């Protein structure tokens, strides 16, 4: 299996093919996770090629959490041999493997976890590889780097940044966990936002909604139909009345909305004695006034994407995402009349199923019309940049083109599109471009509030100091037990220099310096296990293109069980 150079892709494909057909039913095996990211998320996961640098405990824990849910393949790059101290903390290195290639042993044991994942390794020094064959990394979907010294990390960061390959840096140092996402540009269609408004368009009703609602006459309905008319229809009708009474305006203030609610309340049927009936749909309509009458508009975040140079200057190499954003912009400016394509779903509500389904169809049909219009723009744009014939008769997907289902998914999520652009490692590590304002502020807070549970940024600064120590002495502070006392002042000096370079006047408490010295750069399994979960989750977000990854640094304080994220 040992390779130093060569056509990586071919090896993977063979391995993947060999594994086909021997597996268990994937739907059963992956059932519990398909419910989180769906079949298409799983397909993206299964086509990913992940590279891990260093089969450290942190590294194998991350990879374990990626092999289990079924990434396509992984390659471990590591030149070390298994040592006794590795075995004690790394579940994927065994005692009898001491002296063997760490990359090889970990690859073999990790491969056992899932026969549908192809595992591969390269026993080579990362510095050499970066020097001699940097294009080696070009074939990967994502690269994970663990326990790397600063110099190597920066070199790797530069190589991957140039090639637009996402890098996830993870490190465990005593009771500290550190994660850094280095992604030039990551575009997310399915961001799975937590809180969303329904897209109902009551303020801007479309033709189908007009027609459907106008075809229903509340007054002539029998009792059962009246009390089973969907609230969406009720709200439409009473809003219409309200608008007629108020010069076409829709209610926006609290007072106006209350007036509308009163109006709806009056519509509830009464029995012979004049007592209002129990009509749940009317109650739902009243409850929905506040949440459903917000003005439909293109969100500011999406407006910003429309003005992004990537959207405005399409070319042959443009990402599909940007082609679709541009199509969306054109739709909004034309057919959409200032609005995004309709999402096409409605919430559950009291209704007879017949009219509920009709209403569902009304929304779905309009969403379909909108999506078709967007698709038209997409195809025209692809044609303009020389990527597709305008009328591709079979509509089959070719490289660089887009399928109808992709365009539909995009339209459904049009209001939630997200673009993540991380800062590069170079920016972070260059004093002129470092985010010193943020660092300074956190140090200050830390100094002011000694009991602060809330700020772990100081741990980052200490890790940087330890790195500087490494640069100077070619070992981490107190890496050997007997140097603890001697290393504390040396580390303090490194820290002072670092803060001085940054122009920060605030100090870091001695306790912290002692603590980090005591860690001796050791990796604790339980911290590695925790970070393995966190980092793998971020990798899954990146390769599935779903959910928004952390931007850009995550720090875990295992002693306090606290964590923070910060942009550095």
């Amino acid at each position, binding site marked *: 299996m040992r390779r130093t150079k060569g056509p990586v892709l071919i090896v993977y494909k063979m391995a993947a093919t060999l594994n086909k057909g021997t597996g*268990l039913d994937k739907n*059963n*095996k*992956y*059932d*519990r*996770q398909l*419910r*989180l990211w769906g*079949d298409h998320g799983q397909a993206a996961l299964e086509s990913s090629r992940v590279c891990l640098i260093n089969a450290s405990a942190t590294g194998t824990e991350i990879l*374990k*959490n990626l092999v*289990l*849910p*079924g990434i396509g393949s992984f390659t471990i790059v590591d030149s070390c041999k298994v040592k006794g*101290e590795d075995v*004690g*903390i*790394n*579940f994927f290195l*065994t005692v009898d493997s001491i002296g063997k290639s760490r990359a090889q042993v970990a690859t073999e044991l990790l491969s056992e*976890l899932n026969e549908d994942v192809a595992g591969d390794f390269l026993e080579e020094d990362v510095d050499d590889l970066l020097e001699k064959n940097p294009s080696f990394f070009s074939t990967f979907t994502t690269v994970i780097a663990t326990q790397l010294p600063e110099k190597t990390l920066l070199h790797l960061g530069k190589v991957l940044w140039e090639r637009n390959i996402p890098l996830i840096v993870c490190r465990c140092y005593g009771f500290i966990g550190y994660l850094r996402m280095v992604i030039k540009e990551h575009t997310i269609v399915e961001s799975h936002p*937590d*809180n969303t408004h329904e897209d109902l368009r009551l303020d801007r009703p479309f033709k189908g909604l007009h027609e459907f609602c106008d075809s229903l006459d509340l007054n002539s309905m029998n*009792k*059962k139909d009246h*009390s*089973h008319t969907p609230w969406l229809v009720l709200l439409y009708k009473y809003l219409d009345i309200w608008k007629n009474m108020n010069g076409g305006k829709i209610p926006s203030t609290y007072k106006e909305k209350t007036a509308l609610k009163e109006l709806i309340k009056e519509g509830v049927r009464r029995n012979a004695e004049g007592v209002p009936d129990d009509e749940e749909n009317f109650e739902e309509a009243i409850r929905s006034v506040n*949440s459903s009458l917000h003005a439909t508009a293109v969100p500011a975040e999406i407006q910003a994407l429309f003005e992004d140079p990537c959207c405005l200057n399409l070319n042959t190499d443009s990402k599909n995402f940007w082609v679709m954003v541009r199509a969306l912009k054109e739709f909004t400016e034309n057919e959409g009349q200032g609005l995004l394509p309709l999402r096409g779903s409605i*919430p*559950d509500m009291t209704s*007879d*199923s017949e009219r*509920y389904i009709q209403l569902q169809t009304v929304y779905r049909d309009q969403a379909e019309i909108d999506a078709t219009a967007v698709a038209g723009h997409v195809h025209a744009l692809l044609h303009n940049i020389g990527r597709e014939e305008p009328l591709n008769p079979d509509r089959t997907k070719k490289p660089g083109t887009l399928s109808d289902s992709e365009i539909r998914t995009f339209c459904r999520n049009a209001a939630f599109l997200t673009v993540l652009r991380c800062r590069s490692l170079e920016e972070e590590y260059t004093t002129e471009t470092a985010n010193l304002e943020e660092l300074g502020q956190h140090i200050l807070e830390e100094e002011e509030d000694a009991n602060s*549970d*809330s700020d772990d940024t100081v741990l980052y600064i200490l890790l940087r100091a330890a790195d500087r120590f490494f640069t100077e002495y070619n070992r981490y502070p107190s890496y050997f*037990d007997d140097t*603890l006392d001697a290393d504390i002042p040396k580390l303090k000096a490194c820290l002072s220099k670092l803060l001085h370079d940054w122009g920060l006047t605030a100090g870091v408490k001695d306790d912290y310096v002692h603590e980090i010295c*005591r860690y*001796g750069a*050791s990796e604790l*399994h*339980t*911290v590695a*296990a*925790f*970070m*393995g*979960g*966190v980092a*793998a*989750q971020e990798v899954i977000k990146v390769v599935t293109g779903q959910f*928004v990854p952390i931007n850009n640094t995550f720090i*875990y304080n295992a002693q*306090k*069980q*606290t*964590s*923070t*994220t910060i942009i550095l």
Partner: protein
Amino acid sequence: MAATLNGVLENNLAESIIKSRLLMVGAGGIGCELLKNLVLSGFSNIEVIDLDTIDVSNLNRQFLFRKEHVGKSKAQVAKESALKFKADANIVAHHESIFSPEFGLDFFKQFTLVLNALDNRAARNHVNRMCLAADIPLVESGTAGYLGQVTVIKKKLTECYECQPKPTQKTFPGCTIRNTPSEPVHCVVWAKHLFNQLFGEDDPDQDVSPDTEDPELAAEAGQAALSTEAKKDTIGGIERKSTRSWAMETGYDAEKLFNKLFRDDIKYLLSMENLWKKRRAPQPLDFQELPGKGEAMCTGVMRDQRVWSVQECADIFAQSLAALKQDLYSKGDGGTLVWDKDDHNGMDFVCSVANIRAHIFGITLKSKFDIKSIAGNIIPAIATTNAIIAGLIVMETLKILSGNISKCKQVYLNRIPNDRKRLLLPCALDPPNPKCYVCSEKHECTVMLNTQKVTVRVLQDKILKGHLNMIAPDVEIDDGKGTIILSSEEGETEENYDKVLSVFAVGQSSRLKCDDFLQNYSLTINIVHVEKLEEEKEFEVVGDISQFHPTETTTESPVEGHTNGASKSKATEEEDDLLIVEDQVTPDLVSTGRKRPAEDQQDALLIKRKKQESNTEDNEDVIEIS
């Protein structure tokens, strides 16, 4: 091992780790991660209890298990896998139920602390009581999708698992299930009941025939009710026989069963006119004339993802019925089948039946994938969350061992960093609830019931076991004579089971002394006699704890409580009882709303959930213990 600690841990802690004896309850998703973390952190005396065997759907995260282990004991295989990597660890595996009498007080007392890695509330309640009785610390945990939490329980120092009542498990009135379903879940419950009626153990609470005692009908009174009774006899006299024996007689004939269940019974329901005055009336179906007739059956990969036509449902109903019949016959006389969400035929049966019934009642049909979620109470589960939570558990364990239990935290894992950029939310542990009927000095509660209707059996099964979480209760009346009405010894009080409480002179203000020897737990119940409780409830536990009683959550209620995801939700992946389907969206360990530290109040925005669809589309926001 020394290399790993390398002076990072204080010396006395390193020593405590080596000396300590741990009990890990559960070897599933969290359990696998935890066992690995423990052995690689230097723990060497660990006992593992798990009753479960390995299923294919475990393999995406329970990494100590492989394909070849499917069907084997989780505890045993977990032990063997861990020993491969750490041969000198002393791991004892018990393929046993935690409720087994062999795990009594003496068993618990030998451990330094107990780590729960469980997936159901009953077992959590039990371990909680055992740890309180043995006075040893318990680390409790759970995950669901991207969310998770860890907490520490110690007698007299922290809240116990039962200090805050959990939202009651959602149940549906029998008449909704049998007569007037209005949501897909009602049809799924009915379909599971039908499965048990046809193949499983008999349970009188799971009748699937039309319910003539529907309170809505009672309101009808007089003439109409009489005529309903009269009609009953005209429908082939089927009702008088059990569904099972009738089905057996027909040889599980698909057409006959179909036409009885979906045509004749529905026609009978239609005769209860009062039910349909304000509702859409159901439409009976005939096996030979179904919508979608003549269309090809759906096969291939998308079979489980798309919604089947009614004709397809009927075909799949017939297919699965025949297969299940074979399974049943192969069990011999008196054999029964147990429904399992991961069994192909059982799932096909429930899915097709639920959809046919949904069609009849004009309810939205669902795909098998979605119905599996509802019926199996499936909570999404992934390796990453379990890894994170297991890491946190060990950190809390280390604090306990170093004598810093007061520094322990209750830690919540958010789906994404919250507005304050925190992925983790540590909260201080709350002190015990002085009125908790489990961990306070005085164990007392009040139960409202009708003493002339509630039997000793109901007292035992539904109140003491079902609600108050006892395992093997004994009950004596505090009447000065010590009359024993219920004994956990077999054969001692069985003749009492079907007698109502008033037979034993239990009435207003009676006090019942209930005792569970296994849990070393006793509780005094004050009886309040009431004629009738709302919503057809048989009893209601009130009194001291009631002031904390949360309102029952429903599917459309805020599921998650908070955007910070410190969610509350109960994890019952393996509990197949559909009546607790609500557990997916209700608090697991403790309700967390009040646990927010002040600084995090701003995060406490309620999330509005979509109904139903959200359960399957993005129901990652719930807590499981896997």
